[in-house]
């Protein structure tokens, strides 16, 4: 090996020095998170099969429930059922889409890569924030696949382009908040498989004990009670309102409160668990 030239100036980054990151701590967190999000995206692109849970899987769910159960549930009108089901299916897929993130982080954290990140002068939260930010791509994918494939099956947006875009934006936003539960679980349990197990235990009751598949008023009273307090329910109602029509404002408010609540509770829990795991 030949001797290095070392001609790149030390700490060249405009204005920063050894003890003061360029632009202050918030700018540094944003910059580092973007760099780490890029890392996650490269990994996603290198392993496209990891996108099955946000592409093929929701499509299969949509096919099964529309053609297998749809007729029975809706009394024969499959088109009406698809219009009802798809917004709910989208919400369910977003909740499930976050599970992979917790699994990936769980697999990563005990490898040397995270040790390296921790030995660098970046905010503790940057590796987690970066990983979550990269998940935007997965949530956007699930929205486009559901709406695209749904359209082929006969789903029609009845409101307009702007409300539909708002529905996608809200969906992605919800996915970004909900996935912090998965991140937290990923920091707590020992194996990626356990992350999936724990998250399924949580997501399945939320997905099925909701207004995704059937009208709430067909359920027994005690189950209606659960549906009312389920965070998936207002999200589904809002997406329905924004895509096929119906009341939006109240449901949207409830959804936004849930999103804020998820962040307030699970971001600190995840960060604390991450710090302990280290």
């Amino acid at each position: 090996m030949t001797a290095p030239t070392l001609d790149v100036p030390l700490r060249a980054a405009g204005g920063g020095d050894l003890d003061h990151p360029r632009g202050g701590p918030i700018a540094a967190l944003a910059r580092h998170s973007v760099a780490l999000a890029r890392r996650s995206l490269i990994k996603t692109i290198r392993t496209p099969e990891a996108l099955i849970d946000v592409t093929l899987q929701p499509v299969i769910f949509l096919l099964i429930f529309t053609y297998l159960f749809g007729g029975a549930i809706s009394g024969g009108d499959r088109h009406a059922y698809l219009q009802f089901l798809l917004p709910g299916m989208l919400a369910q897929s977003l909740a499930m889409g976050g599970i992979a993130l917790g699994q990936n982080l769980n697999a990563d954290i005990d490898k040397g890569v995270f040790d390296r990140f921790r030995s660098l002068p970046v905010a503790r939260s940057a590796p987690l924030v970066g990983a979550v930010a990269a998940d935007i791509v997965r949530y956007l994918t699930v929205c486009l696949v559901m709406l695209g494939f749904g359209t082929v099956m006969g789903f029609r947006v009845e409101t307009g382009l702007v409300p539909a875009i708002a529905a996608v934006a809200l969906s992605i936003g919800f996915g970004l908040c909900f996935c912090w539960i998965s991140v937290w679980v990923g920091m707590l349990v020992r194996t990626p498989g356990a992350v999936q197990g724990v998250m399924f235990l949580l997501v399945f009751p939320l997905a099925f004990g909701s207004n995704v598949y059937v009208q709430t008023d067909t359920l027994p009273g005690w189950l209606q009670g659960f549906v009312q307090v389920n965070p998936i329910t207002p999200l589904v109602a809002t997406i329905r309102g924004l895509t096929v029509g119906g009341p939006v404002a109240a449901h949207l408010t409830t959804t936004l409160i849930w999103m804020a609540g998820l962040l307030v509770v699970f971001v600190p829990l995840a960060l604390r668990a991450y710090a302990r795991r280290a």
Partner: protein
Amino acid sequence: MMSDLVVRAEGLRKRFGKTQALDGVDLAMRRGTVLGVLGPNGAGKTTAVRVLATLLRPDAGHAEVAGIDVLREPQRVRRRIGLTGQYASVDEDLTGTQNLVLIGQLLDLTTRDAKRRAAELLDWFDLAEAAGRPAKTYSGGMRRRLDLAASLVGHPEVIFLDEPTTGLDPAKREDMWGVVRTQVAQGASVLLTTQYLEEADALADDILVIDKGRVIAHDSPDGLKRRVGGLTLRVRPVDPARVPDVLRVLDAVAAPGTNASADTAAGARRGAVSVPVAGDAALDTAVPALRRAGVEVTELALHLPSLDEVFHALTEGGLTATKQEELV
């Protein structure tokens, strides 16, 4: 004098469940030198490195790196250190370049400078051709090199290398030693853990021996050798049949209370005789005596004990026992 120390730790303690990984470790490394931390598996070497590299908070104790308190200002420490762990900590899905550019960005280099630095390091570590390939396609040796390159992106003042050559073949190991020497020549200080005594002997200015979470010795390689055993004179006659004659001659120059013995230790080449001697004056007696006895020799040398011998003497309770006797 204290400012000359680039790493300083006092009374480090860390317990994992029932295991006392660090049991009051004191440590000091002089600026611009290599400190070799030696010890058997599970001795606490990695735990000590993780504490110093801000990855782990000790239960008790104090540590400074580059004059900065590790516990109070870890971010300032992190700007001045490079770490290469026991296993290669590169991202397998990223290419060599992407791995290094990411580190550069996290160190607040501009993207342009991060790319230049990455290219420079990849070139130096003979990875330029593989720069665009994902690291999972690299051989073990290439990953180690990339990993070491990653720890050098920020021109660290202090470099921690945790068993950097474990599993490498001898040629690759010597390449790695070259890297360490170059870094030191450029002003860095290197703390290196290893299980290879040969490696510590080749690189380290000072050696710290850890066993069961305690420091059992801290000295220069030669100092350690002298502490554990004195000089040994070894003679190998041309004709192996003359070994008994050599034994007789060397017994006369043996240090008080010792005898010459034929080398029968495992791995030793047969047909040589060793004797502990009090000093190099033994040569003045031994050489003429061998001549008089008409013994031709192929080897005649004065040795300090190998670090292997030192290490075993220290970790198998030899030194601890001596110390306890001194205390009584």
